[in-house]
């Protein structure tokens, strides 16, 4: 506990837990918006059941001086909305957890045992100011009081937020917030005398988006103007985000009848000069593998966002996992080039999604943005991207009379024309084809076309993004991870307090840059961390980089790693400090 107390002074982990539909989201929205307004760094993640009402879902909101963008198991302040909620997070509750709830409601199913609940009559207080509906605002008020939010900011915000609902509602909300605020201030005095979470004026220019939005915005910046997909958790958010942009951006968003239609539509869109996109989960992607192979054969650009969730089959629809990497890498019959990105930060979600369109277009290949439920649902404040330099340049040519879609070139990539833009004809064929794009059975052309389609892997390797190294190559322990584990492992290493543990975060998983093995030269020990059971990236490292990592850390129960368990794992592998 001692260490915990220390930490706690400059950060707080607040968890809201209740049934689906109970209003957790309202608290979360208000609270995070106010945190931003008041200048606090925060991070939020969700874990939820596959049901629309009932069950037990929780949202974690971390408030901190330094930026911490990862899931912690620790709960400093818990708002359990139901008895079941309490059970749901019971094994995360420690002596230090402050449980704020309505005792009566929480003990209805029997005594809560050794859990000390600070009875907080949200509903009663809310009723005092105008009705039970204001209970959420009371809860927000508690954190506001605890952190001593400037009241003019909070009240102004509430005014704007509830503006349309009229003055009375605004007033009631402000009063509700005051009720909570008082409690918060009292708690601060009693429980958190040393609490000192620094504000950061820089964050006023930050944006707040979750992974789904970051991917969607990256896509838009990459020139995406056609998305066809079929809803599937955890990627529905990307799809609906883009659908909602259609009123402002020049984008067509179509809900397809199935995933097969989705990818075939998107390929058609690229053919006609648009920039097509599909977003789906592993199971939906399974239905796209024939279409993926088609993109390979047609040398059609394609961008696919695959959000992983625990599988096989329907699995745990709303949970997280990194179990589809090998599938994504090898999906589709036959041999053709592809690129797999796996962003591990929201910044990278944005950046790599944008890049994906450029890569896809330049190399005329499918490019994946591989994420997972944890990644798309989490959000935090981060620097507003500077988009001034971006141009989503179309790599298409005006066709001449003798245009050949599959003209042999040194790089393997032929100038891409589109129908109706020039005097030529653009002929695409899923059969093996001639340079003109017409069906052929000529065996020599076959060989040359295979080589043509694979040749671009050389350039792709050269252009491959290097893994991000934090710390020294010469280290006691190299912690290797990809995608959404990046921030978790980063913080775990920081928490370990050891500077002989380094982080190697892969954001491009295929192809790997030629010098990949070099990163592994100096480490005494190396450990590979994956949210799956079979070390899927380990296989990639072995076949692509000749790197063989024996030590692995796995988790595959549907939850992300927590920073704490990651720290424990790493300490165990690193052994005693020399």
């Amino acid at each position, binding site marked *: 506990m001692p260490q915990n107390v220390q930490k706690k002074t400059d950060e707080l982990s607040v968890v809201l837990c209740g049934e689906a539909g109970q209003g957790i989201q309202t608290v979360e*929205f208000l609270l*995070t*918006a106010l945190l931003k307004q008041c200048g606090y760094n925060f991070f939020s993640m969700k874990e939820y059941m596959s049901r629309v009402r009932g069950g037990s879902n929780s949202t974690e909101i971390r408030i901190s001086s330094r930026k911490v963008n990862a899931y912690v198991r620790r709960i400093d302040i818990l708002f359990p909305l139901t008895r079941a909620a309490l059970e749901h997070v019971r094994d995360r509750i420690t002596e230090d957890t402050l449980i704020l709830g309505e005792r009566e409601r929480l003990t209805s199913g029997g005594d809560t045992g050794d859990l000390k609940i600070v009875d907080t009559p949200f509903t009663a207080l809310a009723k005092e100011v105008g009705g039970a509906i204001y209970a959420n605002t009371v809860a927000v008020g508690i954190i506001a009081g605890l952190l001593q939010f400037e009241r003019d900011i909070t009240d102004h915000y509430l005014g*704007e*937020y509830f*503006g349309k609902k009229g003055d009375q509602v605004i007033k009631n909300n402000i009063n509700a917030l005051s009720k909570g605020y008082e409690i918060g201030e009292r708690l601060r005095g009693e429980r958190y005398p040393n609490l000192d979470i620094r504000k950061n004026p820089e964050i006023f*220019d*930050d*944006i*707040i*988006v*979750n992974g789904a*939005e970051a991917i969607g915005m990256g896509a*838009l*910046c*990459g020139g995406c*103007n*056609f998305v*066809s997909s079929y809803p599937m958790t955890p990627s529905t958010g990307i799809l609906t985000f883009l659908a*909602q*942009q259609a009123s*402002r*951006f*020049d984008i*067509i968003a*179509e809900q*397809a*009848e*199935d995933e*097969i*239609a989705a990818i*075939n*539509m*998107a390929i*058609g*869109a690229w053919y*006609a*000069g*648009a920039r*097509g996109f599909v977003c789906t989960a592993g199971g939906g992607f399974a239905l796209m593998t024939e*279409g993926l192979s*088609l993109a390979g054969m*047609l040398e059609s650009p394609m961008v696919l966002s695959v959000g992983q969730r625990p599988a096989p089959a329907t699995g745990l629809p709303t949970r997280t996992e990194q179990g589809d990497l090998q599938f994504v890498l090898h999906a589709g019959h036959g041999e053709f080039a592809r690129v797999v990105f796996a962003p591990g930060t929201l910044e990278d979600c944005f950046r790599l999604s944008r890049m994906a369109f450029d890569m896809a277009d330049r190399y005329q290949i499918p490019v994946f943005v591989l994420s997972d439920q944890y990644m798309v649902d989490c959000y935090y404040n981060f620097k*507003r991207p500077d*988009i001034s330099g*971006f141009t*989503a340049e*179309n790599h298409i040519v005006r066709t001449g009379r003798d245009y050949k879609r599959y003209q042999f070139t040194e790089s393997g990539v032929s100038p891409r024309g*589109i*129908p*109706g*833009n020039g005097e030529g*004809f*653009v*002929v*695409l*064929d*899923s*059969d093996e084809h001639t340079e003109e794009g017409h*069906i052929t059975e000529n065996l020599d052309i076959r060989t040359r076309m295979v080589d043509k389609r694979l040749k671009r892997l050389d350039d792709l390797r050269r252009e491959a993004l290097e893994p991000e190294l934090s710390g020294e190559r010469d280290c006691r322990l190299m912690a290797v991870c990809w995608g959404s584990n990046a921030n978790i492992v980063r913080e775990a290493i920081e928490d370990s307090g050891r500077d002989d543990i380094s982080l190697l975060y892969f954001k491009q998983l295929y192809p790997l840059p030629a010098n990949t093995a070099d990163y592994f030269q100096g480490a005494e020990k190396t450990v590979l961390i994956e949210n799956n059971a079979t070390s899927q990236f380990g296989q990639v490292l072995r076949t692509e980089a000749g790197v063989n990592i024996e030590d692995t850390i796995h988790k595959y129960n549907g939850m992300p790693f927590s920073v704490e368990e990651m720290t424990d794992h790493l300490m165990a592998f690193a052994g005693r400090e020399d």
Partner: protein
Amino acid sequence: MDVKELEPFPELDIAWCPGCGNFGIRKVLMQALAEMEMDLTRLVLVSGIGQAAKLPHYVKANVFNGLHGRALPPATAIKAANPELTVIVESGDGDMYGEGGNHFMHTIRRNPDITCFVHDNMVYGLTKGQASPTSLEGFKTAMQPSGVILEPFNPLAVAIALDASFVARASISDSEQTKEIMKQAINHKGFALVDIFQPCVTFNKLNTFQWFKDHSYYLEEEYNPRDRVQAFQRALETDKYPLGVFYIGPERPVFEERQMVYTRGTDPLYRRSCSHEVMENLLDAKMGNPPEVLQQR
């Protein structure tokens, strides 16, 4: 325009069997396009896989020859991405009603302004003679040695049930009429289906040229294709199959017209690009200021 201009190469090697009904369809299509003075550089022929689906390779046009059963999704997207293009789908009965059945239904619901010619030979030609969805009950093949036991798929009845915009049947045994129906279909605004009887001389010894002649007749002149129930009733006739335009649905906007993007101008997508201003506005909205945070997250 001279039909010859539609020949893609000087010495074309057509992979169909001598005598195949597909030759007739190709010829008639080329005639129709020539008579319509089609701008070939803006014409896209889309197909899946099958004998019928090879047709695009034999006509001078832009070609998207995709996957078996998957002609309609790219066709819809091509038209949506660039409404300036004329999009015609060439498909087989297996390609369209078998592997592609789901797209058939939902594309009709979407109603893009594309034309869909289904070469209906009541058999899988390219894979050497298995039953297709339209094969008649009892039809024997290597795969169905005791004969087909499934109810034949009635494409017209289903299309009418889905309120398709234009539903017709032709038979290549009559080129002249087939050409006229094709032209009408291409000119029609909205999704137009023409199921074309096409003899497969190699694998369908039942539904031959003669059989199609003997088992079809034209809808009467006074037939009114605007009556959906009557169209349905006529689509059920199987003693002799009526030919002609069965149904023309009520006028309604087509898929691409209804896209927001085209309310802001008619430029196809490739002539647009992501506006920095709109993007900056979106970023503004993501700064946690009220009330966007609620609407957007």
